[in-house]
């Protein structure tokens, strides 16, 4: 694995064209993006600007029509399906807008899931879970089935699940979209703190003003292209 990289996320002339009812739609139209380790970046822009598509391409969930993606200096478009799955499992934490959790498992089990796939030691697992539950403030609910939690609580579990395996990158696709402002603020503060503590790289797609305010770098996407990119 190449550890000599300046940019933890890098894209080069990234393009995505997909067909919608037989009409070709150019969702991402040549994006060159460089994100340094530890950045807390918000990817904003109006609906249809290509935020989610870009996120999916970066995550390796979707295949680009043209261009390349490097994560941690590795070109993911060259990886096989199985390699990509393992890479994702070990290096990327996902937080989605909703449906983040495995509904039949408890809080603890959801958080544990990826570590189990990774084959992490039981002791290490328990230490990490204990720690992260403290951070998200859900220690008392560790054995509750996640479907019996509130939306805010569920998103906190999702953050815990995404971060517990200590990935280099957290990709969060509109994580606050279904939350009220108090909950959103709370959640963002928590992520910000974790970013400081762990140095994980956060990339949000969002149109939540609050997220944009808290971000240390704001990239505005418009019509599938970078319209504005500024560091605070």
């Amino acid at each position, binding site marked *: 694995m190449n550890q000599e990289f300046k940019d933890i996320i890098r894209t080069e002339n990234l393009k995505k064209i997909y067909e919608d009812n037989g009409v070709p739609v150019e969702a991402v139209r040549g994006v060159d993006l460089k994100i340094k380790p530890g950045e807390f970046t918000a990817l904003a822009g109006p609906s249809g600007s290509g935020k*989610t598509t870009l996120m*999916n391409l970066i*995550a390796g*969930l*979707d295949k680009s029509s043209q261009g390349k993606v490097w994560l941690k200096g590795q070109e993911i478009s060259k990886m096989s399906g*199985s390699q990509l*799955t*393992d890479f*994702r*499992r*070990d290096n990327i934490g*996902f937080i*989605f*807008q*909703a*449906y*983040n*959790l*495995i*509904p*039949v*498992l408890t809080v603890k*089990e959801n958080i*544990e*899931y*990826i570590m*189990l*796939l990774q084959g992490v030691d039981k002791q290490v697992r328990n230490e990490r879970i204990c720690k992260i539950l403290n951070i998200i403030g859900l220690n008392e609910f560790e054995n509750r089935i996640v479907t019996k939690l509130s939306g805010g609580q569920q998103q906190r579990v999702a953050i815990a*699940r995404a971060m517990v395996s200590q990935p280099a990158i957290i990709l969060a*696709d*509109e994580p606050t*979209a279904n939350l009220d402002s108090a909950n959103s603020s709370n959640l963002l503060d928590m992520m910000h703190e974790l970013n400081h503590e762990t140095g994980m790289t956060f990339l949000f797609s969002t149109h939540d003003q609050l997220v944009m305010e808290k971000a240390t770098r704001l990239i505005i996407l418009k019509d599938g292209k970078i319209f504005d990119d500024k560091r605070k």
Partner: protein
Amino acid sequence: MLLFKIALRNVLRQKRRTILTMLTMGGGFVLCAASIGWADGAYGDIIYSFTSNQLGQIQIHSEDYLDNPTIYKTIVDYEKVGKQVDSVEGVKNWTPRIYVGALGMVNQEVSGVQVVGIDPLREDSTTNFNNMVTEGEPLPSLPGYDVLIGKGLAKVIKAELGDSLVLLSQGADGSIANAKYGIMGIVESGEMGGDRMNCYIDIRSAQQLFVLDNQCHEIVITVEDISSVNSVTSSLRSTVKSDKLDIQPWMVFAKSFYEAMRADMNGLWIQLGIIILLVAFGVLNTVLMSVLERQREFGLLKAIGTKPGMIIMQILLEMNLIAIFSVVSGSVVALGLLYWLSNYGISLSTPMTFGGVEIQQMKATINLRSFVIPLITVFATTTVVSIFPAVKAARTDPVKTMRTN
């Protein structure tokens, strides 16, 4: 373990669907188990009564007798052969017989008959022959001019107890075989062809009449356990060492009966096939529904790094868990049902005849295969039917299914 936990909880979460699926699978299991146990019981009974009545389970003849029986193809010195038969383990009894065609006459009524020379004592202990003597008396233990005739034959030649039966045939030396016998009993074997043809005399009288000293045409053998027929047959073949003798189990000498039974058994398999098909549809319905409504979940699982194989395993595990519940509960029900059917059975209002054997009551049997066959079939069906939806679930594209609305 995690997979098992997820699968089990998924199964328990959809209680209603799980119970409905269990009813389908368990119902199919019980039906299959009961059908097999029932059929095995009925066939066992049929085989037993068919073979115990007259045929025995194993027969010895002179070579080629079965294909083309003639008076000349005899077992010579059959007492000696009988002693060897007695020494074979698993043999219950044996009895010798002579068969010769003849003309039989009672009071000027003449008909073709089959003279069967039997050893009265051996015949009774081997085939319970005396139980078939429904009128009059069985043959005495000492040879004389006594004859028993089949019920159908008695009707044909208008014979009654006490009448004289004159037999005319030819001895093995070509001489005229002619003698007169007193009818002392009527035989009802339940086998209609035989009852219309047969008249039974002491084998020693028959040997004298047909000039067949110390010879017979057939040795009928019964075994201790009907399922050991084939092994007893092979030990008989190695014990009774004579290449001029032909030793065969009932499946060979009662070939048409055996084949009719097998054909009937095929009917059973078709019936089981239909049951399994119904179960398969039930399982397919369940697995399709549960896969379709959990597409987002599978999308998530894949996005966060779950391999497709694990998703396939998870779904197969879920369905097979339901199958385990179904088979366990189905086994309890099937066991109860078969226990009841094997003890009480069902009486037929009109007796059924199969291969000339009349069956008044049908009873099931409890055997291992009544459970093992449906068990394997239920699991196999469940797995086969679940594989396609499971693969489909494993191919879920997270981008499409996770797209927020």
